[in-house]
């Protein structure tokens, strides 16, 4: 859908107001027309967006629509959600969870303070992942599950378990599995998170790279979403954050959400950023708010 004239005029007025005096220094940048997403609606925001949520929201709906699996025209409407949890027999993601659990136990034996750090001083990890990303006032930054693991390893064990490394992904998928089924609840009342959400939203529409694509070029209604892009069909961005890190069957390895951003960037012929880059953190906050209310769904495979 293309915005109509009054909307465009209004947008022009608003942006004039927002530009202020620093405008001259800003480089010319193009943006994909913004879709309307209300962060307060969480995953329900997909209604009026891709409108596919009713097909994949619940186990019963996925079961009812199982006939679409493998159908090149219909399958995208399931948002790949039939690949989550134990919906797939002998799910390799389960093995990754087991490995992550064993690794956490080993590190915990070396220093119980590591597990305490992971659990923010609590007694276990149950349900904790559902509240990530969150703002850490002591560190003065937004923390994701992956950066939290990196931080605890460094401060407690004096060990590098970098975001994006196989070890970090294994620990992260175990950490998140301890919240499987718990609805995601990113705290929108936290001003720092809302600022990050707004920055992430802006990045989502920013055109980058040699192809001049934005994330929105492929992941909003009216774009390529739902259309064939050679062998693939881009789906809705709602509830994606819920099933990460995911086990990538084609390469036989776990992939974090931010590594997936980098992979889309490579397709976009845009410079890839490293996991933990502040821009990727903002994108992760944006995308996780789009998963609010949807259960953490690891392990998963894609």
């Amino acid at each position, binding site marked *: 859908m293309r915005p109509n004239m009054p909307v465009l005029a209004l947008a022009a007025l608003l942006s004039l107001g927002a530009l202020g005096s620093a405008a001259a220094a800003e480089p010319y940048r193009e943006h994909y027309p913004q879709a309307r997403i209300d962060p307060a609606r969480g995953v329900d925001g997909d209604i009026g967006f891709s409108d596919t949520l009713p097909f994949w929201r619940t186990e019963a709906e996925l079961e009812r629509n199982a006939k679409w699996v493998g159908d090149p025209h219909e399958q995208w409407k399931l948002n790949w959600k039939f690949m989550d949890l134990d919906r797939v*027999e002998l799910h390799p993601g389960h093995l990754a969870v087991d490995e992550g659990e064993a690794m956490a136990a080993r590190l915990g034996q070396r220093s119980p303070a590591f597990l305490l750090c992971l659990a923010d001083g609590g007694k276990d990890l149950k349900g904790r992942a559902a509240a990530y990303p969150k703002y850490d006032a002591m560190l003065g930054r937004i923390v994701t599950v992956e950066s939290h693991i990196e931080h605890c390893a460094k401060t407690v064990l004096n060990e590098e378990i970098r975001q994006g490394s196989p070890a970090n992904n294994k620990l992260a998928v175990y950490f998140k599995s301890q919240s499987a089924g718990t609805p995601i609840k990113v705290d929108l009342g936290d001003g720092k998170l809302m600022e990050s959400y707004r920055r992430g939203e802006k990045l989502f529409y920013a055109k980058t790279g040699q192809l001049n694509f934005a994330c929105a070029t492929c992941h909003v209604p009216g774009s390529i979403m739902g259309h064939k892009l050679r062998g693939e069909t881009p789906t809705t961005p709602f509830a994606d954050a819920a099933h990460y890190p995911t086990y990538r069957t*084609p*390469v036989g390895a776990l992939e974090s959400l931010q590594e997936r951003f980098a992979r889309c960037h490579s397709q976009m012929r*845009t410079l890839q950023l490293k996991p933990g880059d502040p821009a990727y953190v903002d994108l992760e906050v944006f995308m996780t708010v789009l998963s609010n209310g949807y259960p953490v769904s690891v392990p998963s495979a894609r």
Partner: protein
Amino acid sequence: MRSLSPRRAAFGILLLAAAGQAAAQAPAADYAAYPCLSYSLECGKLATRRPQLKQLDGALNGNAEKGKQLAQARNSGNCLACHVMKGGSQPGTRGPDLSHYGNAGRSDAETYSMIHDMRTRNPDTLMPPFGTNAILSDPEIRDIVAFLQASK
């Protein structure tokens, strides 16, 4: 060993199918000459190259056979990502069908300009600015125009 319900079996098969289409990773190229999302790197401050209306200079002199290959190759035009084209497999469906473009009676000049930079017609186009962003060279765009005009 858990039992295999029919539904799970179907999903299992799909998992295997997904493994088969392991997408070839694009070669690690240096895209830092174009805007990126970084808050600190230089590319984060680069401007988008502005829409550029480029006229076809002189006669077309394109090679349709070469144009066909350029339009299909993923590391070149990859027009097939969005368009149905003559002789291409796994076409995209978002852009208009170009498999009979030669019957539309559009001029070489107009076609050239659109491929060079579609933003001059539609600022919100999804189509990459192939000429402006140096995805395709002038002779390559000529070859693709020849291919499109020969698609009947």
